[in-house]
């Protein structure tokens, strides 16, 4: 259907049954179109209740993790928003696992943080399945794990080594 702009009325405008029907049809059109990409009716998953984007093309989770030097394990950060939120866990220097919930066909991109121009850094990301289980990975709630690996060029050796650094992980996927 096509949205039809209805007239507003004066006190004596004779609003009739066709006006009311059209008003409702307009609402139904908007609702139905909106529902297609905004999580309405996707079972019992978190995507079905809130108006969150369920469109597979829209990012599902943005994870920004910062790093402060001085501690052996000094990551901190928050997963900011989205039903696809999941815990992350520091595994070893330059390697973080992120559990993904209520998503399938997951893929992601990572960008690395740096506080100055000096270090040469980059990150990569992949699915990480059938690896040793971590506490938050041992439940079926987090069937998918993205592993973020970060590298920094060692100025002494000249080689790339895994190293801790801040990063942004953007996760895409199909809601389940």
């Amino acid at each position, binding site marked *: 259907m096509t949205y039809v702009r209805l007239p507003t009325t004066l006190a004596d405008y004779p609003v009739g049954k066709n006006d009311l029907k059209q008003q409702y049809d307009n609402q139904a059109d908007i609702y139905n179109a909106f529902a297609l990409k905004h999580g309405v009716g996707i079972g019992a998953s978190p995507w079905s209740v809130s108006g969150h984007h369920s469109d597979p093309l829209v990012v599902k989770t943005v994870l920004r993790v910062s790093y402060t030097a001085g501690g052996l394990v000094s990551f901190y950060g928050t997963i900011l928003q989205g039903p696809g939120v999941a815990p992350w866990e520091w595994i070893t220097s330059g390697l973080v696992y992120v559990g993904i919930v209520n998503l399938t066909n997951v*893929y992601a991109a990572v960008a690395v943080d740096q506080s100055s121009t000096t270090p040469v850094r980059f990150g990569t990301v992949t699915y990480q399945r059938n690896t040793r289980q971590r506490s938050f990975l041992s439940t079926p709630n987090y069937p998918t794990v993205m592993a973020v690996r970060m590298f920094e060029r060692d100025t002494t050796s000249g080689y790339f080594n895994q190293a801790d650094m801040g990063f942004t992980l953007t996760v895409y996927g199909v809601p389940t």
Partner: protein
Amino acid sequence: MATFRVIQDRSRKDPLGTSTLAHVRENVEAIQGLFRKEHGPTGLHNVLEVPKAIGSITYSASYSSTPGGLGEGGFGSLASGHNPAVGTLILTITSGICTIDMGVQVCSMVENNSLYPHIVGYNVTAANKVEFYIKKLNVGTDPTALGVAGNSWVAVDGSFDFAVFSVAYDDVAASINEMTPLTRANGLRFGSWNTLVDNTSLQNHWYKKGHTATTGVHKIFDVPVNTALIKWSGATTAGSYSAADENYKSSALALNRVSTGVVEISLASGSWTTPISAFFEADYTRTAGTGSQADIYRVVSETSKKTASKITVYIYKYTAATNIWDRADADFFAVIHSSGVP
């Protein structure tokens, strides 16, 4: 949140029924509840998952910028002093739409048939400023830059695509006219009728800002037109690429392996609409556990020669054992933004 109420045809033809009118009013609230979750006061997206700013920064003697799409949320600018040093680019984002916790997605663009991989990192320095640092492999000389032992990098001015994500900047979001719940004897009065009509009209206007009516497809630059995991067959010679876990608005991807580590991406049907911002991410070797320094690392870059009909991707591999960068075939993720629905 109010639930959208289906009104039977018989009832909606009865303008005198208070309960029918009440349901119509509830439907206004139901739509509003869904909408305001992730959309701002003007109907534009206002949520972490949709970029607040997205576009391309290109360098050719000097920097220029190409905002993505329709200007949703505000792109920002290359303010005075945006290039304080070689290899440093400062993007000033429109104030008030991001926080210091913003996230960044960035992908280098290299020149056509580049023999030098690029790397770009980011540094959020303020709620409206992001610095990007661009570096280029600095070993060998054309045409032997790749395949030569060495891993030194030099700061260079260069091009890249970027997207900035941040939490919603206005939780109030789009406002409609408040409506008092209809009760018995309210019936159909011109005031309530006018409000119903106005609210639905507003909602339709907001919705069409970023969505195609009837299908709900996002029609804005902020939402990609194609996403996929692009997989390499693994064959050492005469292998091929294929797309998996693919999502798209109008057409699947077509892939053409030009040579080792060089992949042309286009649409199987039709073409994109410029401008285009594209993000590629290497899917590193699936070695379980913690990995080691002997692993192969990959970086994916793409050319600034991208057009509406084709994007060329270059893939590089670093072999620690020999300290050599070279071209290589590999799996990678692709996210492509284009104006409108192509």
